[in-house]
């Protein structure tokens, strides 16, 4: 019976959808951490805010979440810019050694503030979006439209970003800054501008992901935390600056969680996520620190 379950295409589809979501959220954090060494532990809160954008757009105007997603991305850009002007250029000026520790504390504080503001504004009670939940059958697999949309958009955005990084001069500049920021400045890259662009992109991607995931997740002020954890698993497992590796790691995490639940029980879902996080830190304890040292 277990074998049947493992071989079921239904399960494969679930794992792909969950994994693609993680890959997308992780890609956003990878851009921000890679270019600026900012440990944004509030990354998942951008997912939460994006989810609320989708929720209210749908509730107030009937706009379907895939169309609200660009608005959520735009909100991400606005927040990135506000953060950059209000805080980051001061933080970035403080010197490279302290930036990781300082940013961790700053974002931890901001995360709590944002979560509580969201709870104040929207109440803490979870909400759900009922839309695009018609079931489509493809090759014997029952798929809701919403999951198909999440899978396709997430893969398209991840693929588009990876191609853009290879094929455009600004994309290559982002890769260069991730690899060695000082050398990037030496060869004539406008590093501050590239960092700002990556921050915009990272926040936009998180907001967009939130708007999509709102279709399948309970929407609440504290929904972001697991996504923050997932994003850190993605960048540690995938390797710093290896954005393609991160996408693979996100998919892998989806498989671990979905197949792990199938072999145990749904109550283990969170434990599988956090367990993977701890396991990744144990197995790659060098994790972020080592990757950062190699580049510096």
């Amino acid at each position: 019976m277990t074998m049947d379950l493992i071989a079921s295409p239904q399960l494969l589809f679930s794992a792909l959808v969950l994994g693609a979501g993680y890959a997308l959220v992780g890609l956003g954090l990878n851009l921000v951490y890679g270019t600026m060494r900012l440990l944004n532990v509030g990354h998942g809160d951008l997912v939460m805010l994006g989810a609320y954008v989708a929720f209210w757009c749908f509730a107030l105007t009937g706009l379907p979440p895939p169309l609200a997603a660009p608005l959520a991305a735009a909100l991400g850009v606005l927040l990135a810019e506000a953060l950059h002007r209000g805080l980051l250029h001061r933080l970035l000026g403080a010197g490279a050694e302290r930036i990781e520790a300082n940013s961790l504390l700053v974002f931890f504080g901001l995360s709590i503030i944002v979560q509580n503001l969201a709870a104040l504004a929207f109440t803490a009670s979870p909400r759900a979006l009922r839309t695009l939940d018609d079931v489509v059958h493809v090759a014997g697999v029952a798929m809701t439209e919403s999951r198909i949309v999440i899978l396709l958009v997430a893969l398209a955005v991840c693929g588009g970003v990876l191609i853009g990084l290879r094929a455009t001069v600004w994309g290559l500049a982002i890769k260069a800054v991730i690899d060695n920021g000082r050398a990037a400045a030496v060869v004539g890259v406008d590093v501050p501008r590239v960092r700002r662009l990556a921050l915009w992109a990272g926040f936009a991607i998180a907001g967009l992901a939130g708007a999509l995931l709102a279709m399948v997740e309970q929407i609440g002020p504290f929904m972001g935390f697991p996504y923050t954890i997932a994003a850190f698993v993605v960048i540690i497992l995938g390797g710093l600056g290896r954005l393609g590796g991160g996408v693979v790691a996100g998919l892998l995490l989806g498989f671990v969680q979905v197949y792990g639940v199938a072999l145990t029980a749904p109550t283990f879902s969170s434990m599988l996520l956090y367990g993977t996080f701890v396991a990744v830190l144990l197995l790659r304890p060098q994790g972020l620190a080592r990757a950062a040292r190699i580049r510096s």
Partner: protein
Amino acid sequence: MTAALAATGLSAGYGAAVVVRDVTLAVAPGTLVALVGSNGAGKSTLLGALAGLVAARGAVTLGGRPLDALAPYERVEQGVVLVPEGRQVFAGLTVEENLRIAAFAPRVRGHAARNLARVFERFPRLDERRDQAAGTLSGGEQQMLAIGRALMAEPSVLLLDEPTLSLAPITARAVFDIVADLRAQGLTILMAEQDVHRTLAMADHAYLMASGTIVDEGAGRALLDRADIKRAYLGL
């Protein structure tokens, strides 16, 4: 004649620590100027200040135009390009990506394909390894890549910081040949180098640095023949 690159009363350092004090130097167009001095004399700091990477006070001009207010990428746009100490290639990027990104400056962005072909022509080894990660290259190949990367930006003044550092003698010789070749083609070069003998022998002019200041200067060969310099720097 206006110097290609000139510094007047330049002081530079890190945070509160002033490392380079009141340096005045000039690099005439088309010449190779050497910067020699023992470890810790401040050569890298001075080159970093000229490139805009190290905070500095004083005046830096390129062909008479002030550069002081410009960020590193803006100085590259003006033609001042540094090959940093320790090569600093993008280890995780391919050889070709390393070169392509060095055509970021708007002035040269349109010439990327042509310059890439020229760099590969000059360094066939890099062409053979164009899809290889730069971190997997040998030290000598990484140095060629670092120089090739700078050439992608079509420098009007090339700043070379210890290009033969930790290279095998035969590779170091190849690097000196490249520098001589660039000089022969009319490129203006300011080079810090450990191999004082070889550097002074080929330099048009040289500055001697100690404890963050310039203590002497002269034609390269003239310095080479001086007894005090032989004793202090050449171990003779």
